[in-house]
C-alpha cells in the first residue's frame, strides 16, 4: 500500500449518507486531485463514527481533527486550509455545548471519552470495501492463530473464559453455545449469523456490517472451525442494501485471499459463507423462526427443545450468533480472554453497543464497558436531555424491554441488573424520553408493534396482545376504569407465562414496567381522565390564553384545518369542534398564549 501523509476519513454510514456524505467524498477527492495531492492525501469512505447527531463527519488523521456537520461545499476549505496550509477549519470543529469551546480532536470530546470500542473498533477507521485495510488492522490474525495453534476445544475454552454473552438480547454465554454445538454429531453442521436486526431504534448490527464486514466473516470461520461446520449463512434484512453490498464485496475479497473457501491458510479447513435475505418480520430474530425463514417458510418459531444446536437448519446442528457477538470474537483471540474479561462487571464481561436516541443531545451509536451507569451514558456521553427538558425515562430492550427511571440512573448497566430493574438488555436500543412523553402512549406504541409483528402461531401472543392493545387504547381515550388496570396486569402476566417464544413472553414488559414505574400516570388517565404529559388527544384540548394573546395571527395561519379565528391584534379563538389537536398552534405561538388543558 502507498504511504500517505494524511488520511481524510469520511463517514459512509446510512445516517451521514442521508446528509450527502457521498457527495462530500467526491468533492474532497476532486479537491485533492485539483491540488495535485493524490500522493500525499488519501480520502477514504469508512463505516459509522457513531456521532450521528452531527453528521456528516470527517476525521483527519494523524492529528485526529474531527469535523462535524460537514457539507459537500466545505470540501474546498478542508483541502485548502487543512491539507495545504496545515491548520484546521475552525468553523467545522465540534463545539462543546456546556463549555462553549471548540474541541480540536475526537479524543477530547465528551461523547468519546468514556467509550471503549471493541465491536466497533474498525468502524470509522478503515475502508470496509478494502480487505487490505482490515488486514492492516490485525484482520484475520485471530483466524490464523486459531487454525495454526489451537485445537477446537482450546479455542472454545478461550471464548468461555472471556465471559462473552450473546449480544442479541438473551445474553446466553457464547462459548457454552459453541461447546454444545461442537459435541453434537451431524453430516453437515451450520454456522448462522443473525443479522435480522428488527428492534425499532437499534442499528448497531447494521453499522458493524457496513463498517467492518470482515470481522463477522472472520469470526464465523473461527466458529465453524470450533464446532466442525464448513458452511456459514448470514441471515440479513433485505431493508439493509448498503450492508448487503459491503458483505458481498467482503465475501468475494476473502475468497480471493484464501480466507474463505477450501483449505484456508493451508490448514486443511474448508469454510464458506452465503447470504440469505429476510423480508421484514421481527419474529425472525428468534433463532428457530430465523431457521424456518431460511428454509423458505413462514418465519414461525417452534418449541425448544430441540435446540438449533441439535436440530437446526435443514435438521442439521446449527449455531446461531448475533452480529455484535461475532464482532467481539477476533479481539478475544488477539488480546486474550483475560484482557476481555477484565472489562465489565462480574457476570457481564466486555462492552455493549447502544443506539442512543430520542430526546437526547448526542444521538448516536456508542460502545461502553458493561457496568457503566445510565447517568454517565445520558449526561456525559449523551450530553443531556434535548432543549433543557427534564429526564423522565429511558427505554431499553425495545419491544421486549422496559423503562428505567430516575431511580435507576446510578445502577450499573449489565444483563442481570437490567432484568432486575424490570427491563432487559435486548439488542441495545436506548431511547431517552423527557417530560413531554406519555408513558401509557409509549406502552401502546410498543404493543402496536407487537400486534403487527406477532406471527400468529400461538393464541396468547396473537389474541392476548391485541386485547392488551385495545385496553391501552381505552385508557388513552379516557374510557377505562380503575379496575381495568388490574385486568391489564393479569392479562400481561398470562401472555408472559404462556406464549410460545421470546417475542410473546416479553411483549407485556413495556406495559408492566410503565405500570410499575409510572402508576400515577396510569391513574390520572383512568380516574381523572387526564394525560399529564399532554399527549393523548382525547384527553386534552388546546386553548388560547386571552391575556397573553397579542393577535399576531401566527396560529391561525398555521392551523391545517382553519379552526382558529380572530382579527389581527384581537384575541383569537379555537373552534374545539373542528380542532384535530395537531399542536401546530402551540409550536408557532411565540407569546405563550396557547395552553394544553
Amino acid at each position, binding site marked *: 500500500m502507498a504511504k500517505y501523509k494524511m488520511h481524510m476519513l469520511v463517514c459512509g454510514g446510512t*445516517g451521514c449518507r442521508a446528509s450527502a456524505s457521498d457527495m462530500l467524498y467526491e468533492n474532497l477527492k476532486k479537491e485533492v486531485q485539483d491540488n495535485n495531492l493524490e500522493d500525499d492525501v488519501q480520502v477514504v469512505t469508512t463505516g459509522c463514527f457513531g456521532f450521528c447527531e452531527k*453528521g456528516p463527519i470527517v476525521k483527519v488523521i494523524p492529528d485526529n481533527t474531527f469535523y462535524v456537520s460537514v457539507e459537500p461545499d466545505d470540501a474546498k476549505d478542508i483541502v485548502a486550509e487543512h491539507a495545504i496550509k496545515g491548520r484546521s477549519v475552525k468553523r467545522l470543529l465540534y463545539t462543546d455545548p456546556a463549555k462553549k469551546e471548540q474541541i480540536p480532536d475526537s479524543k477530547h470530546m465528551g461523547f468519546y471519552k468514556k467509550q471503549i470500542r471493541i465491536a466497533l473498533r474498525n468502524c470509522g477507521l478503515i475502508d470496509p470495501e478494502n480487505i487490505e485495510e482490515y488486514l492492516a488492522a490485525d484482520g484475520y490474525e485471530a483466524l490464523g492463530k486459531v487454525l495454526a495453534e489451537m485445537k477446537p476445544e482450546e479455542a472454545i475454552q478461550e471464548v468461555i473464559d472471556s465471559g462473552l454473552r450473546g449480544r442479541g438480547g438473551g445474553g446466553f454465554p457464547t462459548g457454552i453455545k459453541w461447546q454444545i454445538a461442537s459435541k453434537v454429531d451431524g453430516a453437515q453442521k451450520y454456522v448462522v449469523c443473525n443479522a435480522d436486526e428488527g428492534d425499532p*431504534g437499534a442499528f448497531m448490527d447494521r*453499522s458493524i456490517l457496513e463498517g467492518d464486514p470482515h470481522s463477522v466473516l472472520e469470526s464465523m470461520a473461527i466458529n465453524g472451525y470450533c464446532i466442525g461446520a464448513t458452511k456459514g449463512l448470514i441471515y440479513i434484512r433485505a*431493508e439493509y442494501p448498503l450492508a448487503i453490498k459491503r458483505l458481498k464485496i467482503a465475501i468475494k475479497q476473502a475468497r480471493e485471499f484464501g480466507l474463505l473457501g477450501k483449505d484456508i491458510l493451508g490448514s486443511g479447513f474448508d469454510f464458506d459463507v452465503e447470504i440469505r*435475505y429476510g423480508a421484514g418480520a421481527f419474529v425472525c430474530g428468534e433463532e428457530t423462526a430465523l431457521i424456518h425463514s431460511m428454509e423458505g417458510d*413462514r*418465519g414461525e418459531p417452534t418449541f425448544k427443545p430441540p435446540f438449533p444446536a441439535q436440530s437446526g437448519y435443514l435438521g442439521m446442528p446449527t449455531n446461531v450468533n448475533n452480529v455484535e457477538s461475532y464482532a467481539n470474537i477476533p479481539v478475544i483471540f488477539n488480546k486474550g480472554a483475560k484482557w476481555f474479561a477484565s472489562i465489565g462487571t462480574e457476570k457481564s464481561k466486555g462492552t455493549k453497543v447502544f443506539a442512543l436516541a430520542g430526546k437526547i443531545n448526542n444521538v448516536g451509536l456508542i460502545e461502553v464497558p458493561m457496568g457503566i451507569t445510565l447517568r454517565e451514558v445520558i449526561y456525559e456521553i449523551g450530553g443531556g436531555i434535548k432543549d433543557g427538558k427534564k429526564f423522565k425515562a429511558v427505554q431499553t430492550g425495545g419491544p421486549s424491554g422496559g423503562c428505567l427511571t430516575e431511580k435507576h440512573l446510578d445502577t450499573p448497566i449489565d444483563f442481570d441488573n437490567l432484568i432486575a430493574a424490570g427491563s432487559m438488555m435486548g439488542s441495545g436500543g436506548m431511547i431517552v424520553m423527557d417530560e413531554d412523553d406519555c408513558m401509557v402512549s409509549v406502552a401502546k*406504541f410498543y404493543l402496536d408493534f407487537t400486534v403487527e409483528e406477532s406471527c400468529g402461531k400461538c393464541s396468547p401472543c396473537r389474541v392476548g396482545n391485541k386485547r392488551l392493545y385495545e385496553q391501552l387504547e381505552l385508557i388513552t381515550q379516557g374510557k377505562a376504569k380503575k379496575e381495568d388496570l388490574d385486568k391489564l396486569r393479569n392479562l400481561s402476566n398470562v401472555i408472559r407465562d404462556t406464549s410460545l417464544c421470546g417475542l410473546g413472553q416479553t411483549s407485556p414488559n413495556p406495559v408492566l414496567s410503565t405500570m410499575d414505574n409510572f402508576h400515577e400516570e396510569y391513574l390520572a388517565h383512568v380516574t381523572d381522565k387526564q394525560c399529564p404529559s399532554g399527549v393523548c388527544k382525547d384527553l386534552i384540548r388546546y386553548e388560547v390564553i386571552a391575556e397573553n394573546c397579542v393577535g399576531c395571527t401566527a396560529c391561525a395561519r398555521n392551523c391545517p384545518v382553519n379552526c382558529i379565528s380572530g382579527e389581527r391584534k384581537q384575541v383569537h379563538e379555537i373552534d374545539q369542534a373542528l380542532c384535530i389537536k395537531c399542536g401546530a398552534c402551540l409550536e408557532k405561538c411565540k407569546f405563550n398564549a396557547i395552553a394544553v388543558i
Partner: protein
Amino acid sequence: MTSIKLKLKDSEVQKLKEICKSFNNEHGELINVLHGAQEYFGYLPAEVQEVVAEEMNIPVAKVYGVVTFYSFFTMLPRGRFPISICTGTACYVRGADKVLDEFKRILKVPVGETTSDGKFSITCLRCVGACGLAPVVMVGDKTYGRVTTDGVKDILKEYENED
C-alpha cells in the same frame, strides 16, 4: 386477496420462470424467488404467485402464506413515488406520528395505499437507522431528515412537476 385482476403477458410469465429457475426451483429458495419477482414487478399480485407456485411445484396457499407473512412483500402496487415514514421508536418520540398524520391528511389516503393517480403511496417502516435525523421520511431512495409537519408540504412540492 387483491381485487385487481390482471393478465400477465407471455414475456412476464417467461421472466418469472427464469427467476424461479435461477434458484433451481428449490422450495428453500422461495423467499429469494419472491424477492426477485417483486424487484421485477414492483409487487406480488395473485397472478404472479400462481406462476411461482406452479413453477416451484408448491401449493399457491403456501406462496400466499409466505407473501402475507413478511412485511417487505406487498400485493398492492406502490406509488411511483413511494413515501415511507419511519415509525421506529426514536422517530416516534420525535414526532413521527404527527408527520404521518400530515401526509395522510394532504394525500387523503390511509397507510398502505396509493393515491388514485398512482403517484404517491404511504407506508410505515421500522427504523432506517438514521436516528440522528429523526423523524425520517423516505421518498423512493431519497432520505429526508428532521421532518416537521410544516416540512411535509415542501417535500411533496419537490415532486409536483415530476411524473
